[in-house]
């Protein structure tokens, strides 16, 4: 029997199962196939809370959402069209996000009495009318997999493990995904265990054939490749892009990279990634704590390295004193804060934008530093290079504000031309800089106000720096009141003078009265919402701040040129506070602090309300 093929412009799939079910891997593979096929895509993994919960329980549910389309898209999507539920917990945990009429593919084998009770289902939702409003496909994924693998000499347990590949095969059939990449991937992954490799491939193909042959799926879907700008692409997550950006910054600055870090969710993967690339002359140091991590990075920077420390909110708090030392000794340093839900331990695996004001003000004394924030997973690459550029050019710690959503989310990334990456190299100071032939460690570049960077090993420039106030020029300890006032202002002036590009506004016909402003990871949902408004004929302008400190020179002017400025933030209005104070503009804040990214639909509604003026 030939099956009907339906064309779609976009699909949102969510794979959900137990932590042990390998949903993240399944999602990754489906993403790879989708990328290879040429769709635009965006993903959102959702890990269970810190600790692995017992199998089959709600806290143990792990999910992976993928949005792919025949046009360029901006978010992992608001609501799934298809939910793959590997067990009752997965169904229950995700049903709330599922719009009526969506497809549910449920692994009936796991809907046992015990598993149902574990999550508080009295009856079996697959049998009673609980799911009346959805299109349910009940598939005994586990047993089908086991049967498919009967030929192999595998324990039942091992065979069952492959059920996620069966599901992947089924979905690949359902959406016409290419299969080669997945097969070769499995061959590589289990190179050492060819039986396991074969079994997984068999399960994968069995899933495909199941879709092809059985009744339960009458329709399959096609999503044409997207017309993306030509180039070589790969799919990349924010943490990986950020790590690559740091490596690129090291190459482009000709400075050896030294990472001093202490593991913390959701930043750890940057440490993991960088530790794999020692051949770039990278040193990764897992310190005893965050303070030692940043301390070591600062020490390395004093020695001429590109010093980096990576962490999340609680770690930034701990590093504050040492970052203050970097501010006053005016050494280059990159502090990466992958923000997570706070306060305190908060919700480590959830995203938030609540560290902006800590980044600005979380140190004793007047202690200014530049702040850069990436706007998408792949943008973490460029943002890292930009942070490094500022750090080495101005000899200052720079705060790079990523977040949990960017860190783990992924999207296709058009690889940059290496030749087009900026040269951010600076020369160490090697000669005395004073008329009298002596060396003045705090004599500044008249344009950038940066002080010389003379590293140990340089003859004749021996000098001492420290955290006590320094005399302008000589850098000797000084308690002179006027010198202190001058130094406080010059440190501020140096940061205020950092060269940042103007803020770009997207206002197609220049008729918008409302500007939607954003920063960081909210770019995708905001842009998607703006599109919706415009599609429905509404007029709205959009601008997104990449530099939070200093702000682009034209920021105030732009804010004042619109009747209303709407600023959605995943905090209680932190950027709004800075902009209101600076420009006395009555910014309209929209704040939700749910540990999740905004949804495009949600924001579209908010924007419309502002346009309509209520």
């Amino acid at each position, binding site marked *: 029997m030939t099956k009907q093929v339906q064309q779609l412009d976009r699909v949102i799939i969510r794979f959900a199962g137990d932590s042990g079910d390998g949903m993240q891997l399944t999602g990754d593979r489906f993403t*790879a196939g989708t*990328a*290879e096929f040429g769709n635009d895509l965006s993903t959102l993994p959702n890990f269970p809370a810190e600790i692995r919960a017992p199998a089959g329980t709600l806290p143990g549910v792990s999910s992976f959402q993928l949005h792919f389309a025949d046009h360029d898209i901006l978010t992992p999507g608001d609501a799934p069209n298809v939910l793959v539920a590997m067990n009752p917990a997965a169904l229950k945990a995700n049903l709330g996000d599922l719009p009526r009429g969506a497809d549910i593919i449920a692994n009936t084998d796991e809907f046992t009495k015990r598993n149902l009770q574990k999550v508080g289902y009295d009856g079996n939702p697959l049998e009673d009318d609980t799911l009346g409003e959805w299109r349910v496909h009940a598939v005994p994924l586990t047993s089908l997999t086991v049967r498919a693998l009967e030929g192999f000499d595998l324990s039942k347990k091992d065979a069952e493990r492959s059920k996620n590949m069966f599901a992947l095969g089924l979905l690949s059939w359902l959406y016409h995904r290419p299969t080669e990449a997945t097969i070769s991937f499995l061959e590589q992954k289990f190179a050492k265990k060819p039986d396991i490799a074969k079994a997984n491939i068999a399960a994968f193909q069995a899933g495909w054939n199941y879709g092809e042959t059985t009744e339960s799926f009458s329709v399959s879907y096609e999503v044409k490749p997207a017309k*993306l*700008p*030509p*180039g*070589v*692409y*790969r*799919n*990349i997550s924010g943490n990986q892009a950020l790590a*690559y950006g740091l*490596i690129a910054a090291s*190459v482009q600055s000709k400075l*050896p990279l*030294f990472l001093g870090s202490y593991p913390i969710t959701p930043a750890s993967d940057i440490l993991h990634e960088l530790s794999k*690339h*020692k*051949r*770039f*002359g*990278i*040193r990764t*140091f897992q*310190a*005893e*704590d965050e*303070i*030692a991590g940043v*301390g*070591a*990075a*600062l*020490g*390395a920077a*004093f*020695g001429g*390295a590109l*010093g980096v420390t990576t962490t999340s909110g609680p770690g930034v708090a701990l590093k504050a004193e040492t970052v203050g*030392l970097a501010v006053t*000794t005016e050494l280059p340093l990159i502090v990466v804060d992958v923000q997570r839900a706070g306060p305190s331990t908060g919700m480590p695996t959830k995203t938030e934008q609540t560290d902006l004001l800590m980044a600005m003000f979380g140190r004793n004394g007047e202690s200014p530093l530049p702040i850069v924030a990436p706007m998408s997973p792949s943008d973490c690459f460029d943002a890292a290079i930009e942070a490094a550029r500022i750090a080495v050019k101005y000899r200052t710690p720079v705060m790079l504000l990523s977040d949990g959503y960017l860190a783990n989310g992924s999207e296709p990334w058009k*690889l*940059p031309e*290496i030749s087009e*990456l900026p040269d951010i190299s600076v020369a160490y100071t090697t000669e005395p800089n004073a008329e009298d032939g002596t060396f003045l460690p705090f004599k500044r570049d008249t344009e950038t106000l940066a002080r010389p960077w003379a590293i*140990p*090993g*340089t*003859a*004749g*420039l*021996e*000098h*001492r*720096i*420290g*955290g006590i106030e320094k005399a302008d020029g000589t850098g*000797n*300890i000084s308690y002179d009141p006027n010198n202190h006032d001058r130094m406080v202002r010059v440190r501020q002036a140096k940061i205020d003078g950092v060269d940042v590009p103007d803020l770009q506004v997207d206002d197609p016909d220049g008729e918008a009265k409302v500007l939607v402003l954003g920063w960081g990871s909210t770019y995708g949902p905001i842009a998607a919402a703006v599109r919706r408004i415009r599609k429905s004929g509404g007029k709205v302008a959009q601008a997104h701040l990449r530099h939070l400190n200093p702000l682009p020179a034209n920021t105030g002017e732009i804010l004042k040129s619109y009747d209303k400025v709407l600023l959605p933030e995943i905090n209680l209005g932190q950027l709004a506070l800075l902009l209101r104070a600076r420009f006395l503009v009555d910014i309209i804040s929209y704040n939700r602090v749910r540990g999740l990214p905004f949804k495009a639909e949600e924001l579209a509604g908010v924007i419309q309300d502002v346009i309509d003026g209520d």
Partner: protein
Amino acid sequence: MTELVNGKGLSLIPKSDVKQGMKDFKSDQEVRWCPGCGDYAILAAVQSFLPELGLKRENIVFVSGIGCSSRFPYYLNTYGFHSIHGRAPAIATGLAASRPDLSVWVITGDGDALSIGGNHLIHALRRNVNLNILLFNNRIYGLTKGQYSPTSEIGKITKSTPMGSLDKPFNPISLALGAEASFVARTIDSDRKHLQSVLREATAHRGTSLVEIYQNCNIFNDNAFEQLKDPEIRDDITLRVEHGQPIQSASKAVVRSADGGIEVVDRASVAEADILVHDAHRADPSLAFALSRLDEPAFEHVPIGIFRQIDRPAYDVLMAEQMEEAKAQQGPGELSDLLLGGDTWRIG
């Protein structure tokens, strides 16, 4: 670079081609300790010792925390970093790990190193980072004007303990040995010859060398180590701990005790041959640890010298080895390879 990997002692640090003198290591900054402070003696000892190493001055870095003692780097005409309280070992770790061509010194106090900085210290020790750590132990917080420190004796009356302190002090030598230190020594500000002999070994040791220096704070804890300076008794209470030498003072000697431990006895009462001979190179730190306990209770007899001195690869060398290995296996890093590393596809 393989030279680096096999780096021992000072071999990786460039030598000066000019003869150096004490004055070459004096900075132009006026020394600002209280008149009579033991820090002066230590500064002079270090300044007059450094020329002996014959290293390029620009390849020497002094990193310190906060405290009277931590002002030390300002007075040396080398590179220096007067950092923040307790963090010098961490900052120096980043510097030493990334710059095997430097002689990195950490100057710290008993509060800086053992109170707020205790964790960084013990981790530097276990990692064997290539540092010379000089711990100025005056058993008091000097800079903040006289509170008790982690090395102050129990019952110490200070500004913050008017009825006496309650905390049992650390024995820095015991703590360091418990933290896997590869080089641990104790000396005293007033004995320049001994101080310099210890520095000689410490600088020859690639890895972390911890040198506790008893230092007098004549303002807030004067005469804390008086007995060790009093010509009347010092030779009797100072137990010299020297590799290959019997452990003894003028009148006392260390021997094995009946119960298998060690004890201090009247030297006259034992035969030379029965006196415990010190072996600083033992893999097992237990005996060094036992020696470190001999100054309980304070100052009836105090072991001074190098307790432990063993060869263990230094952290910077191990890091360099892995970089070497990575390059050897995968070739030097190429940005384009990196970016093209994953699953890629071409559009258009």
